């Protein structure tokens, strides 16, 4: 009961907050643009399937969620505890006869609901536009693949929310929490590839294999890479990107079945899921042991 009370209040705060509305509207607009861009490709005579629309183009849904998803996650979590601590409302909350984890559970549940709403709207919009404009209908398997991607994308965004929730608890300062969360996201999404290239370039030019190995190993630290690999593999049967390599598998091209795609990509799913669990566990441990003064 208390869990729902906290979750509904937080959910209401999220969906009426300016920062969420900006991100929500931005994602919706970009989703519509993505649909229009695919419509224009169909109109240009390309023969494409439903899954092609979702995975190709510079504004594919995978790319959009990959870029904006972490921002949505961070926006939902970076001040969730620090704001309560800074304002002093945390003491009013904690002096109620509820357990501390109820507060955290409520905040996580509200975050999950908000992510479901955002992502659900975006994917529904996209599917609707693709059905209406180019007139491409998904097959049952494509729908199942989209559903799996949807769940995975929710986990990916939740992982970033959990990260910012943790920084919010550790720093107790909203500005610091935001700074750390955003820096982490930028580092592991963008800077890490530059760093990987720089380190790889230290190896002799002739050692191409060594350079690729270094590049691959470092880029595997990026959650975005795992998101991208899993998403492409799961949405489209045409993709068979090796989960631990930056290249497609060497096997001759042949569309994968859903089970084959899952069997290929599960390590990426496990890595993102592990990040979520680690951040959540650390948040619970820190918050439950926190001495409010």
């Amino acid at each position, binding site marked *: 009961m208390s869990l729902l009370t906290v979750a509904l209040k937080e959910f209401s705060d999220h969906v009426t907050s300016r920062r969420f509305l900006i991100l929500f509207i931005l994602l919706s607009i970009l989703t519509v643009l993505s649909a229009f861009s695919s419509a224009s490709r169909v109109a240009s005579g390309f023969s494409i399937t439903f899954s092609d629309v979702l995975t190709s183009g510079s504004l594919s849904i995978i790319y959009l969620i990959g870029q904006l998803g972490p921002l949505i996650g961070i926006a939902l979590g970076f001040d969730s505890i620090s704001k309560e601590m800074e304002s*002093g409302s945390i003491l*009013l909350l904690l002096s109620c006869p509820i*357990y501390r984890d109820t507060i955290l559970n409520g905040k996580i549940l509200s975050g999950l609901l908000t992510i479901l709403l955002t992502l659900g709207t975006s994917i529904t919009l996209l599917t609707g536009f693709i059905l209406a404009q180019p007139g491409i209908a998904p097959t049952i398997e494509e729908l199942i693949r989209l559903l799996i991607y949807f769940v995975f994308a929710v986990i990916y965004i939740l992982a970033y929310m959990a990260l910012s929730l943790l920084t919010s608890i550790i720093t107790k300062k909203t500005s610091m929490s935001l700074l750390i969360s955003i820096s982490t996201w930028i580092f592991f999404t963008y800077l890490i590839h530059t760093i990987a290239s720089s380190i790889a370039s230290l190896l002799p030019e002739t050692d191409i294999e060594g350079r690729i190995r270094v590049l691959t190993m470092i880029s595997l630290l990026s959650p975005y890479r795992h998101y991208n690999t899993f998403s492409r593999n799961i949405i489209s049967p045409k993709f068979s990107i090796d989960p631990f390599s930056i290249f497609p598998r060497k096997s001759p091209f042949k569309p994968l079945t859903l089970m084959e795609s899952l069997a290929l990509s599960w390590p990426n799913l496990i890595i993102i899921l592990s990040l979520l669990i680690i951040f959540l566990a650390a948040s619970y441990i820190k918050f439950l042991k926190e001495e409010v003064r």
Partner: protein
Amino acid sequence: MSAIIETENLTKIYHVDGREIRAVDGLNLTVYEGELFGYLGPNGSGKTTTILMLLGLISPTSGGGRVAGFDIIRESKAVRSVTGFIPEKFSFYEDLPAYDNLAYFAKLNGIVKNEIDDRIKWALNIVELSDWINAPVKTFSRGMRQRLALANILIKKPKIIFLDEPTAGLDPYATANFRSLIKRLNEEFNITIFLSSHMLHEVRQICNRIGFLNKGRLVAVDTIEGFMEKMGIKIILEATNLSDKLIKLIEALDDVNRVFKSNGELIIYAREDVRLDISKIVTSLGEHVLTLKIEPPTLEEVFFLVYGGEGR
């Protein structure tokens, strides 16, 4: 009267930068049902830490206690269901109206849905905020927020209310208003009040009994009258010369506890009326008595006696 708050060697030690700070040190305290108990101490003396431990919001390093019959460590949730707390620094959700804020906390306090509306209106009426029921909290003055916090607590009909420096930052009118409200809650609803403050005059005005806390230790507990009695008789002497010899001779009297100079007067605390002896000493030194009178000691003097003239 039965005890509603009891602590036994309650201790909280913080480790800050490698240093051990005993915020609360072996606290043995009993507060009785229906009391308006003043918990007095300088800033940093451990008042807030005590309250947070009593509410089960922080764990004691050692010792324990019971609040309203519940163990503060093992039954902290039950403790919080029968107590209310207004922290020194707190905030409601500023953009939400008073009603929504109270309804939110009422739900978290386990009030059944069909009672929430009535209880909110009843509580807001008591704190005289009925007209502000739909106003966002951000439009409230500090005094109104304090009263709203009191309404927030009243909704759950608590047995004990913990107030931590409740009038800090309030203007004189709001302060007086809030104090009378506290007294009313204590008298009309028999709610035990545990008032933490560093303001002596505040505690003196409304509390029945006072505990003095210093550097985490409870140094004295008594009623105001009890403290006055312990202080003894206060005698004020003005003479033509208040020499050191005169002071030593007065100090040597059997019934005299303490003698000190203040603003050209000699203040003497004694167990008995020793004015006649003092008068004789002054005359024996060839001086003249200008004033020799008895005055009741003030609580401020008790305060300075307890703290030796300095806080932490």
